């Protein structure tokens, strides 16, 4: 798994490539935390993520809490059907905006 962080003006994008499990989640968490510390408008791009375990859900929970605490917004991008099903089973889906493309996420976040 690889994580890259890029800034698009006031929006910070966290892009993940690869599987998120209990081996890789700490790296995802470190990067996601760094992103929430410098911006309160975050897009997490999961287009290249095929698999995410509960370790990844925990990171999303952390991001949601940090961002909510500073009245910000987080949008998830390109979430696979399998992962969306898991988010739905656990009720996580109700708390996140999910879009297909990164461009859409950036437009929405900038409007806010």
């Amino acid at each position, binding site marked *: 798994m690889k994580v890259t962080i890029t800034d698009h003006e006031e929006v910070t994008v966290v892009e993940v490539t690869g599987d998120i499990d209990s081996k890789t989640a700490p790296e995802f968490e470190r990067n996601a935390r760094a992103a929430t510390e410098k911006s309160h408008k975050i897009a997490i791009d999961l287009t290249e993520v095929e*698999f995410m375990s509960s370790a990844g859900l925990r990171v999303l929970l952390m991001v949601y809490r940090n961002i909510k605490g500073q009245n910000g917004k987080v949008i998830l991008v390109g979430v696979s059907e*399998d992962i969306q099903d898991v988010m739905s089973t656990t009720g996580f889906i109700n708390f996140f905006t999910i879009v297909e493309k990164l461009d859409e996420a950036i437009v929405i976040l900038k409007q806010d």
Partner: protein
Amino acid sequence: MESKSFPGIVDSLDSLREYIGELAQQAGLAKKPTYNLKLAIDEIATNIILYGYQAAGMEAEVVVLSEITGQELVVILVDEGAKFDPLGKELPDSDYFSKSLEDREIGGLGIFLTINGVDEFSYQYSEGKNRNKFVMKIAAT
């Protein structure tokens, strides 16, 4: 039953999921149940590795036993860690899932996803070993 061993470390999770994917393919399991089984195995294997082995300072293997019959794919994870029954824990209930994310306790999610994702899940402890059993029904095509 077929048997394959993996070192009890988080680095094994990737190849473990890949192996489960191969078994699912041999069994003719559809895409969605395949993902659910991979997830269930990953969650239980994670518990074994992090708590059964790592936290206890133990180095041991996770053994995957499997069998494909006409109707089912059966996978059993066998480990030598301390006795731990995943079903012994209280699982998140509907009350939990109606809570907003800020109010939720973390934990129990992995086991919830495991039980929710497979057709049958059972646990047995015998001869000093934990046996977590997963059964997936193979849909007739």
